Every structure is written in structure tokens, then in C-alpha cells.
């Protein structure tokens, strides 16, 4: 087996195998979203019950899978010299990135499925425009993956771990996901609205809302996410170090 696609597939399997064994990544991508669905869906901590909670937790699934988990895994691959060694094998950079992208997508999709099914079990009735929701979700995946790779490719491994987890926590709490920005001072709320986490949470909420307020907010979300994706991708491309 040595075609390009076979190598990319082999690397996908390898990434998934290591990821599913790493307790920290499992905690981030599966346990935390599951606990949050239960906590937010069964309580009134966030107004709107399970219908309001699911888009927020889906945002967290995407943030965990595409940003934190990807950054941690890649950061350690860099530190252990594994990426350096792989660069001497027939696995090309394109193969490696394809493998990483598919593995990340698979894990994120699994998390999204688990959250959705759990939500349905708790009474969530998916409504709204699915193609738009999927489009926004994919855009969010790209945004966070670009920034995850930028982080993993520029900082030391220990710093990647600290920053990836710190940003994860900060965005969940103050990035317009859990705490409603409208409850905060106006200047702060405006700034938060331009964070990718807030844009994704808002976009998913709108897309999954049976009675959407309009397309303007969706468009804003898409634009904000696109801008962050572009910036992250350019930075990652420019500054990513393979060793």
C-alpha cells in the first residue's frame, strides 16, 4: 500500500487511534460536552432550556475537537520529533494534513452526534434550516482548526497545552457561549460578538431556531468566522514550524 490516498488514510487511522487513547482529549471532546448538555438541558442556568443549550454545546464540541484537541495532539507530535521523522517517510505534508483533517472531522462529528442525540433524548426538537447550520458548523471547524494549528506550530509543547486549555475555558465562559454577552457591559458585549466562539454560537442558534429573527445575524456570523479563518490560516501558513 503506498498510493497517496492510502498513506493519508493510514495517517487518519493513526491519529484516531492515538486520540481515542488520550484521556485528556476524550475529556475535552466527549465528556465535557455530555456533562454540559445534561447540566444546561436539565437546569434553567441558561434561559431557554434544552433548545437554547444545544447550539451552545455544539459550539463547544467544535471548539474542543477542532481547536483544543488538534492543538494538543499536534503540539506533542512536534515536541517528540514525530513530525520531523514522518517528514523523512513517504508521508507527504499533504498526506499528513489530509489525515489530520479527516481524523479531526471524524472526532468532531462524533461529538456533535452524541450531543445531538442526547439533546433529542432530553426533548430538543431540531428545527430551522439544516444546510445553513451545517455550513456554519463547517466554517467554525475551519476557523478553530486553523488557529489550533497556528498555536501548535509556534509555541513550545507545554505552552500549547496551557494556552489551548486556557483559551478553551475562556471562550466557553466569556466568549459568548455560556454567559449571554447581553448581560455584560455593552462595550464588552460588542467586542465579544466579534469572537469566533460567539459568532459560531450565535450562527448555530439562529440556524437551528424554528423562528429565526432574520438573515442579517447569520450573515454577520458567517463574515466574522470567515475573517477569523482567513487570519488563522494565513498565520498558520506563515509561522507553523514542523519541529
Amino acid at each position, binding site marked *: 500500500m503506498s498510493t497517496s490516498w492510502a498513506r493519508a488514510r493510514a495517517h487518519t487511522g493513526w491519529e484516531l487511534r492515538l486520540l481515542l487513547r488520550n484521556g485528556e482529549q476524550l475529556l475535552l471532546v466527549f465528556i465535557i460536552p455530555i456533562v454540559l448538555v445534561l447540566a444546561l438541558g436539565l437546569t434553567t442556568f441558561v434561559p431557554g432550556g434544552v433548545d437554547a443549550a444545544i447550539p451552545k454545546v455544539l459550539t463547544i464540541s467544535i471548539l474542543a475537537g477542532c481547536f483544543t484537541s488538534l492543538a494538543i495532539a499536534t503540539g506533542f507530535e512536534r515536541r517528540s520529533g*514525530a513530525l520531523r521523522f514522518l517528514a523523512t517517510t513517504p508521508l507527504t505534508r499533504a498526506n499528513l494534513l489530509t489525515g489530520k483533517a479527516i481524523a479531526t472531522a471524524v472526532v468532531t462529528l462524533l461529538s456533535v452526534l452524541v450531543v445531538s442525540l442526547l439533546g433529542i433524548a432530553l426533548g430538543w426538537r431540531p428545527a430551522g434550516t439544516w444546510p445553513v447550520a451545517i455550513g456554519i458548523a463547517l466554517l467554525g471547524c475551519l476557523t478553530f482548526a486553523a488557529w489550533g494549528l497556528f498555536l501548535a506550530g509556534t509555541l513550545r509543547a507545554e505552552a500549547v497545552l496551557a494556552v489551548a486549555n486556557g483559551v478553551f475555558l475562556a471562550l466557553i465562559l466569556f466568549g459568548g457561549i455560556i454567559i449571554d454577552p447581553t448581560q455584560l457591559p455593552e462595550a464588552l458585549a460588542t467586542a465579544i460578538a466579534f469572537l469566533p466562539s460567539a459568532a459560531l454560537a450565535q450562527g448555530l442558534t439562529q440556524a437551528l431556531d424554528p423562528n429565526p429573527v432574520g438573515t442579517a445575524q447569520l450573515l454577520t456570523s458567517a463574515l466574522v468566522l470567515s475573517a477569523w479563518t482567513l487570519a488563522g490560516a494565513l498565520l498558520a501558513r506563515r509561522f507553523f514550524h514542523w519541529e
Partner: protein
Amino acid sequence: MSDLWVTYGTTRAVAGVSFTVAAGQTTALVGPNGAGKTSTVEVCTGLRSATGGQVELFGYPPSSLAGRTRIGVMLQNGGLYPTARPLEWLTYLAKLYPDPADPSTLLNSLGIDPKTSAPTRRLSGGEQQRVKLAAALLPKPELLFLDEPTAGLDPAARLDLLGALRRLGADGTGIVLTTHALGDVEEVADEVLVLVGGHLVASGPVVDLIGAGGSTSFRATAGLELGALAGALGSGYQVQENRPGNYLVTGPTTPQLLADITNWCAAAGIQATEIRAGGRTLEDIVVEATRNGIAAGEIAEAADS
């Protein structure tokens, strides 16, 4: 590889090095730390681009798929997934190559139990080194690059590795290795390249280098009167103390020379040991080349910048 140059910013790591490795030939890159050995291997394996010069693997650029499919690489720093088990790592790698060796058989032959459930990070340094070697041998490479392969190995494992390298060489595998263990080089290498400050300061078949220069070495107490000894040996001989207690006499090796050295020592009440007539150790050559390189100021510019 011809006229290789590598510079990092203003620091010159490799300056105009050329060499060729034929099938079945083992070439050792030796030299002090910072000599450019690792940089050279990195360029040969496609990890780093050359600033100047030309490097080809089987006629292809090192970073090309055609080149990468036919080489095996053991890096000095890293090349393992700490959380992966040895067998699953090799099983994954095997999927990247067209005609890989069997991972279990390979691990067994290197003394690693393929059924171990221990992740790589729990293995000893020597075991990790052997897993890295297994990854390098997995592609059944035509050309093998080994950066400090014996570092961290215990004596038995080291001898096993050297034996394995000799067998690979006999089977036609070309080998490039870098090492500080010069005794290993004398045992396995056909050709030696001595790098100092990025410059190739000496090169050639091991036997020629060791035999070159008509010299005799011996050990005695440090600080002998070099002038007095040289006077006793007569014209045509020079005496140096390479390292404290390590003496090198340059000049034709004759029975008379050995008698003169031992007589002079006996007269001075000194016990001369480890007399090597007509040859130097590779260590002498590297130390001498390093000194000469520094004296010539060739590496001063690299060290300064």
C-alpha cells in the same frame, strides 16, 4: 552530494562538503559538536534545504517521494510517539512503504518484545533507541541514515547494532552514520569524513587515514619534555602531546624509532604504554584535525557569527 552549503542566518553550519555513498558502503561523519554532521544528515533526508550545492538520492531530490521511499532514517532527536506501543507504530509506518519488513519479526530481531503493551515513553533509553532503529530498517532501505545510533546503548546492545550494520553493509545497504564513538567507526565504516566547523578537513578510507602520516603514538605521564624527546629521536621526527599523557611522534616508523622512544623513557624512569607503531587512532586524527581547523581560523568565522 556535492558542494553542500547550509547557513542559519549568518551562522555557517556546512561549507562546501561533498561526498558519495555507494551501495554496500558505510560512511561515517565524525567531528566535534557543531561540526555540521546533523545538518548534513538533515539535508540528505529532506528535512532541511541546502543553502547551496546539490544533493541527490538515487538521482532524485532528497525531499522527493522517490527518494523518501528508498531511505531509512534514525534521527538523533525524536522520531517516536511517546504514547504509542512499538508494534502499532511500526505497523502504521509499514503502510507508508511499498515493500516493508514485517514489524513483529523486525522488533524481535532487535530484542524488543512485539507483544509489549508498554507505550514507548515507558521503555528504557536503549529500548527507545532500538525502536527508532526498527523504524529506520522497516522500509528495507537501500540507503540508511543514522544520527548517533549507538548513543544510550549498553555495551551488548551496541555490539549487536554494529553487527547488524555490518550485515546490512554486506547485503548492499549504503549507510551514512554520524557518531562521537570513534571506536565504532573503526569497526564498521569504510569511509570517514571528518567535519570541523562545517568544513571537510579529512576524508578517506578508514585504513588510509589511520595509516597515514607515518606516526607512532604512546601514553605516558603528562608533561614530558617534548624537546628533549625529539632531540633523542633525531631529525625527521616531531613530537606532540595531543592530550595530557597522549603522545604522537610524526615521522617514519622504524624499529630504531621504537627502541629510541622506549630507551628515552627508560632513561627518564617513565613507563610508556599503549605504543601504536605506524598508526594513529581515529581519535588522534579527529583531535588533530579539530586543532588544525581552529588554528587555520576556518571555524573562527562560524563560531563568531
